[in-house]
């Protein structure tokens, strides 16, 4: 056994280690910025809440808006059930030439928001906790009779198990104050914490020139990140019923730890780049990389517009600009539109549309190891019931997109990728 000490770039998950060359797996969805919508009103309105923000979830969307809440407010997403699915079309090909899909599904049940606001003589204080991204992705697939890139070899059986748990948390105080009756400012100082673990195990039973052999690859990633994400907000009402909201935020990491391990057993007689031959069936390779490179986050600016048409009807629109934080990533403009309509004084219907565009470049032909690129578009709908001091909301958000990916490392072949996310949520808010 020998240790492979230091790697760069995509890490050892992306090394050419196998006769079946899977790409380095993405952790939680780093390619998009609107992975989970939070807040009881905001989620139902497609996240178009920057110019509304007049309850506890305003701490997350625009702290300048919390000054317009009625009394003190406590808001919690009691439960959110998230199901996401990615299908890599034709990721594999069997010996008969049939394309086989590679499919990953994530299901998460979690409370994804809690917030409270309190009026004080100087302004409105708030505290909130949110989970803007959470994945518990699982893949358990077995394929048979797969083509191999090794001449004379055929993969009789391919067993793949992936378990990916990746949660991002933000939590911290907010403060909003009125400059005039029509103008307010606010700030939120979120602490940022991410904890991710990926375990991938793949076993290939290979007919290696008539010999029945196994290739085994077991990988482990553990990543933690600590940082802050401050947000500045302003809200201005130029005329009756019309409100403009503006926020600027940026995440900054103080500490990042990324540990990757791979244990590998190869096929005999086959040369893996930089690795010993595996003619001895007991020889294993253990690779380990510790990397403290800190991810960079985009500077995000969001402009919101809300029109309070009547006590029954509210329309809102958000446009967000995320700059390109690193080389190889692209700037993104997302938009969201929402509507809130009160059927009666006790029931409100909310709906929204939103985009969630990828921050990766388009996948090009003739190039290898490119990040996937899928632009998502979604909608949301919710129903809220009110009593004098409480509201209870049930709703769903759904987004879908198709694009391209390169799931096979070192290969220039491009796979179609379909991605969908469904979030069902139950929220409660209490005014006191």
């Amino acid at each position, binding site marked *: 056994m020998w240790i492979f000490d230091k790697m760069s770039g995509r890490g050892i998950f992306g090394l050419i280690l196998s006769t079946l060359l899977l790409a380095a797996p993405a952790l939680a969805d780093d390619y998009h910025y609107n992975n989970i919508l939070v807040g009881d009103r905001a989620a139902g309105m497609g996240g178009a809440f920057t110019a509304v923000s007049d309850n506890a979830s305003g701490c997350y969307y625009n702290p300048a808006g919390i000054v317009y809440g009625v009394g003190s407010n406590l808001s919690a997403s009691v439960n959110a059930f998230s199901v996401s699915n990615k299908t890599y079309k034709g990721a594999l090909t069997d010996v008969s030439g049939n394309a086989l899909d590679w499919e990953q599904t994530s299901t998460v049940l979690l409370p994804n928001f809690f917030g409270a606001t309190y009026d004080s003589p100087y302004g409105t204080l708030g505290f909130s906790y949110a989970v803007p991204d959470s994945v518990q992705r699982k893949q358990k697939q077995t394929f048979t009779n797969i083509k191999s890139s090794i001449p004379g070899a055929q993969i009789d059986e391919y067993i793949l198990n992936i378990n990916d748990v990746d949660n991002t948390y933000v939590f911290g105080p907010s403060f909003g104050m009125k400059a005039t009756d029509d103008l307010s400012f606010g700030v939120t100082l979120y602490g940022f914490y991410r904890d991710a673990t990926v375990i991938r195990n793949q076993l290939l039973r290979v007919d290696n020139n008539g010999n029945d052999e196994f290739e085994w690859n077991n990988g482990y990633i553990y990543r933690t990140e600590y940082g802050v994400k401050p947000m500045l907000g302003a809200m201005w009402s130029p005329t009756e019923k019309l409100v403009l909201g503006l926020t600027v935020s940026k995440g900054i990491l103080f500490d990042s730890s990324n540990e990757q391990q791979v244990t590998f057993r190869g096929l005999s007689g086959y040369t893996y780049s930089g690795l010993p031959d595996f003619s001895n069936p007991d020889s294993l390779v253990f690779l380990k990389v510790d990397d403290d490179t800190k991810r960079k986050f985009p500077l995000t600016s969001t402009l919101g517009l809300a029109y309070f048409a009547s006590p029954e009807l509210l329309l809102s629109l958000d446009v967000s600009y995320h700059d390109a934080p690193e080389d190889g990533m692209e700037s993104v403009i997302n938009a969201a539109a929402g509507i809130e309509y009160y059927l009666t004084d006790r029931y409100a219907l909310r709906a929204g549309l939103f985009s969630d565009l990828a921050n990766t470049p388009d996948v090009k032909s003739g190039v290898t190891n490119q990040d996937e690129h899928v632009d998502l578009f979604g909608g949301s709908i919710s129903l809220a019931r009110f009593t004098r*001091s409480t509201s209870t909301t049930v709703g769903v958000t759904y987004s879908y997109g198709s694009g391209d990916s390169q799931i096979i490392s070192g290969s220039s072949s491009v796979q179609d990728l379909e991605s969908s996310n469904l979030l069902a949520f139950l929220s409660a808010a209490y005014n006191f």
Partner: protein
Amino acid sequence: MRITTFCVTLGLLLVTALPAAADFRTRISQQLAAETTLSDVEAEISFGRDVAARILGNYPQMRNERLTRYVNLVGKGVAEYAGRPELNFHFAVLNTSSVNAFAAPGGYVFITKGALKLMQDESELAAVLAHEIAHISEKHIVKELNIRAEDEEGKSITSLVGGSSDPIRIALQQMVDKAIEILFKRGYLQEDEYAADLAGNGYIAMTSYDPTALQRYITRMQAQAGAKTAERDKTHPPADERINRLGVFLENNQLSSTLLSFTKERFKRYVDIR
């Protein structure tokens, strides 16, 4: 002329009774919070009864049936115009030389012997009682302490009043403590005091008492400021400002020169404070 003036005054009262400048952000569901139910009234009365008991614990009631009956007649006459027909107003005189008056939610009004001694006619008595009635009718303490019946999905005063457990009784006690602190130490919010001045002035004008009575009374109280008015002075806005605002209100509503009833003789007949 008098009818016209009263109509203008009534209109003004109705306007001031509405929520301040309806905020366009207000959603229709928030009207639920503003609705008053029968249970809310019961909670208000029950809470007010406890506060009234604490007031009487601070100052004993004056045992003078004739005087108490007279104050009740004047007070109930004014309260007819307060817009709270669901409340049964009770008036009592406190046996203290301190110059003050108090209102507990639910319709309990107290005036001190010292205050009566400072008054010169029935219209001034009606004006002071009207000011306290306005605190009740406008629910100043009720709103500030958020006293209301139980929401089916939230906690409320009804369960507190029910006192079914020690923590609930303690919470109720804390609410009563806060109300007593407002009445005796901190005072109402300043805007609530000004609002009570104006609303009370409207009540007495509609009851046909002299609308300048409160101005006269405050002016006299200001002139005699001292130990006996200290408690009232620290819980109320500056007298000059109150007088100015009342003057503007009377002028704008053409009430400053309206000659209505002083009823000095009857006042002297019933109120004989030495």
